[in-house]
């Protein structure tokens, strides 16, 4: 890998100009992050000088591949337009190849990004990092598990990396932030930093930026495009030390993350689930031996499994023993009958042959002590 830019000790003004040029290049139609990588690879000069030359239309010296059907001049004029538009206005920071900390994260990568827009604090990357990924249409049990795992990893001082998608991704980061632990949330977006996708993650995206770090390969205004998300997954796999798949369908996008992680030699864990649950077919398959080959993933039953794999020494500690009050006699019976399934109150009363008021009282007590949660008419046990 060629680190084209060594920033020396750039003045703030130079650095700002450089970041703006990068942003303009990435956002120019017909250019973009992959062409920036190409520029960086094929140029003899440092990135700043290269972009400065490009911005005044001096293309001939570089081996940037011509986009089909478009002249150099047209491309150059678009870049120039973007430059004049962006150089003054951008509020977003760029983390460039060769910047401090870059090589620790991307040094081993065969296809590193050339630059990443970021929001929040890069210090989050100093922590051990675990990616929690999974399906967008998860079961409520999967969501609950992801939330609890995110929370306990944060409490153990581990940063949680995820893609801020619906479902598992969002739940993991919600847990991380709600726990308020040492471990930070690191979100890698498939859109620009100024775009929220899906829209219901507006608050979550803001709190990830405030809590830890948001990363994106794209210019801030770039909207969601289908091809961007698999590319985002490769960054998730590269940034994390360990990847945990909570729940993934047979053809889920999280399996792409697993593929990227395998390529990079990252340990993979998968949460075993009921084989009847369709949304877990993919994650269960990772745990299966195929033709005598060892399974791709190790089973993950909780935080302890992740920490064991992560094995990064003394800064980590498993969360304390269950702080919840031991339930009384009747609530214990209800809790045992509930198991780890979702059940209605009617079902519990019928199964236990107890009168409704007693069951209701037991449920209220369990809810108050944090053992169970109510969701739209059904009860569910909460993991520790």
């Amino acid at each position, binding site marked *: 890998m060629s680190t084209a830019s060594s920033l020396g000790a750039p003045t703030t003004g130079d650095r700002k100009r450089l970041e703006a040029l990068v942003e303009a290049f990435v956002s120019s139609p017909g250019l973009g992050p992959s062409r920036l990588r190409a520029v960086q690879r094929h140029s003899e000069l440092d990135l700043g000088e290269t972009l400065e030359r490009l911005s005044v239309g001096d293309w001939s010296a570089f081996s940037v591949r011509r986009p089909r059907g478009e002249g150099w001049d047209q491309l150059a004029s678009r870049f120039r337009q973007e430059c004049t538009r962006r150089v003054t206005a951008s509020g977003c920071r760029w983390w460039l190849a060769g910047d401090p900390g870059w090589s620790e994260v991307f040094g081993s990568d065969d296809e590193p990004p050339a630059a990443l827009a970021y929001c929040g604090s890069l210090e989050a990357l100093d922590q051990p990092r675990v990616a929690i990924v999974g399906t967008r249409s998860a*079961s409520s049990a999967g969501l609950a598990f992801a939330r609890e795992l995110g929370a306990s990893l944060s409490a153990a001082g581990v940063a949680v990396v995820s893609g801020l998608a*619906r479902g598992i991704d*969002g739940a993991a980061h*919600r847990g991380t932030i709600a726990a308020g632990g040492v471990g930070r949330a690191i979100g890698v977006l498939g859109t620009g930093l100024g775009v929220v996708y899906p829209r219901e993650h507006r608050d979550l995206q803001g709190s990830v930026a405030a809590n830890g770090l948001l990363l994106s390969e794209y210019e801030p205004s770039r909207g969601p495009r289908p091809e961007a998300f698999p590319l985002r997954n490769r960054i998730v796999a590269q940034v994390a030390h360990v990847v945990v798949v909570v729940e993934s369908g047979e053809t889920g996008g999280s399996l792409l993350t697993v593929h990227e992680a395998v390529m990079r030699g990252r340990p993979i864990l998968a949460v075993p689930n009921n084989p009847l649950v369709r949304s877990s077919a993919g994650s269960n398959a990772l745990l299966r031996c195929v033709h005598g080959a060892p399974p791709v993933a190790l089973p993950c039953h909780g935080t302890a499994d992740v920490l064991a794999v992560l094995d990064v020494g003394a800064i980590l500690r498993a969360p304390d023993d269950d702080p919840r009050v031991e339930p009384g006699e009747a609530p214990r019976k209800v809790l045992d009958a509930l198991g780890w399934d979702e059940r209605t109150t009617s079902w519990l009363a019928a199964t236990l042959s107890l009168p409704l008021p007693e069951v*209701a*009282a037991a449920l*209220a007590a369990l809810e108050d002590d944090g053992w169970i*949660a109510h969701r*739209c*008419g059904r009860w569910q046990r909460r993991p520790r």
Partner: protein
Amino acid sequence: MSDEPFVSEVFGAFDESSVSKIGAEAMSVGFAASGAGTGSARSAGGRLASVLSAQLIGITGLAVVVEVHASDGVPSFTIVGQPDGACREARDRVRAALLTSGFAWPQRRLTVNLAPATMRKVGAGLDLAIAVAVLVADGQLPPDRVGGRAFLGELGLDGAVRRIPGVVSLVGDLLHDDPRVEIVVPASTVREALLLGRGVLRSAASLGGVIGCLQGLDPWPEPPDETGGALTTAPVADLTDVRGQVLGRLGLEVAAAGGHHLLLAGPPGSGKSMLASRLVSVLPDLSHAEAVEVLRVHSAAGLIVEGNRLPSRPPFRAPHHTASAVALLGGGSTAIRPGEISCAHRGVLFLDELGEFSPFVLDALRQPLEDGSICVSRAALSVTLPALPLVVAATNPCPCGWWGVPTGEVAGSPSCRCSDASRARYVRRLAGPLLDRFDVRVLVTPPDPDDLLSSGPGEASAVVAARVAAARGVARHRGVASNSGLRGDELRRWAALTVSARRLVETRLRTGSLTARGLDRVRRVARTLADLRGDDVESVLDSDTIALALELRRPVLPDTANGAAA
């Protein structure tokens, strides 16, 4: 009702006793007409006749005086006094009916005035009164024959007198204005009108028959037997058919006993509609006063009154979810017809597929549910209609209905395929203030096959109804019809909490999962639960009861667009 028909031909007596101004005016005008007498039939001033009738606005009958002035001149027939289309067409119906009934059509200039002139006249109910007034004005019928009588009914071209809606209200309010007035009603509605149990009613089958009786040629037909026909009540679905559904049954019983609105949520085929349609079977019979209220509304809405009896059972109305706001709340530009919410007064209003109703309609339901009446206002008039139904609503949790059902709970159930956006849109309609009106919310799940096949019949409606009636009796001790009517200050007295129960609600108040308003509602439901159990009127509510009331108020619909946030 009195068997003695009240017959008076002395107009002066009316002037002294009449309460109604309009009625009094009618009588005095009638007197003036008789004063003009046969002798001055062709006087320069022409001849005037005046006949009392009434029309329906909402469920109120308002007296209308039909005045006909016949004078020399080019033969013509004009109706004034703001008639609507149907009313204006009375000229053609009346003319044909008179001719086919064997009377002569006066070759004179006829002006019909419908007083009070400022009120819009709607429909064909004034036809009979106009025909009678024309005959009086033409001298074919002596004016003293129509004094002290009111005429209601639509005319056919053959002279038949047809039924009109709201006869019960029309008769009731005419009698309220003047208890001695003798009312001629269409023969097909006389049983309905008799259900009020007072006044002197005359049955009119045809115009010719009415005139014959008025002239004293024939006796008035005997009023039908007061008891009416045999009561043919449709068999009401019974709760024995419901298997399992412990919480659903309890919700139903609590709703019936406490008058709490009930929301049933659950996947398709889980038995929501089955439960809802059985709510009416556990409600107590209507009292006489309630029955009269229901009768008036149903008569005004043009519904057939079953078996021609005072309704003893609460009504059950189930409008389709495509119903417009006007259909549900009542309205119309001229005559204000009661809507479904009024037709279900003192009974059950079942809103199936609540999430499919238009959001505008659902929004409009909020205020009447709070007030127990609905004020329908139009440019010309505003009418207050009774609207005190027990609302039971059924809804799926999402457009496809399978959201939140865990794999394996229902054999062979599909998984939810609704997009987040469509689910959010669906739930948003229901969210907020309307949902807050439902004190009892139950998630209904399809019954277990074991329950369906092996267990015996469920508890019968009659058994539940007895408990409900007893609980309502206890509520009446507190001075309310049902516990849902208890005010905040009354709750302090009637729904005190034990220490442990207080702790239970305190935790939830502190975490914000229960609001102050929610607490009041929980206490009302808990009070009903205690009443159903047979507790003392003033018993303190323990933690089990409160826990169960909380259980009946849990959210049963997805609360956010994305299931991830909880």
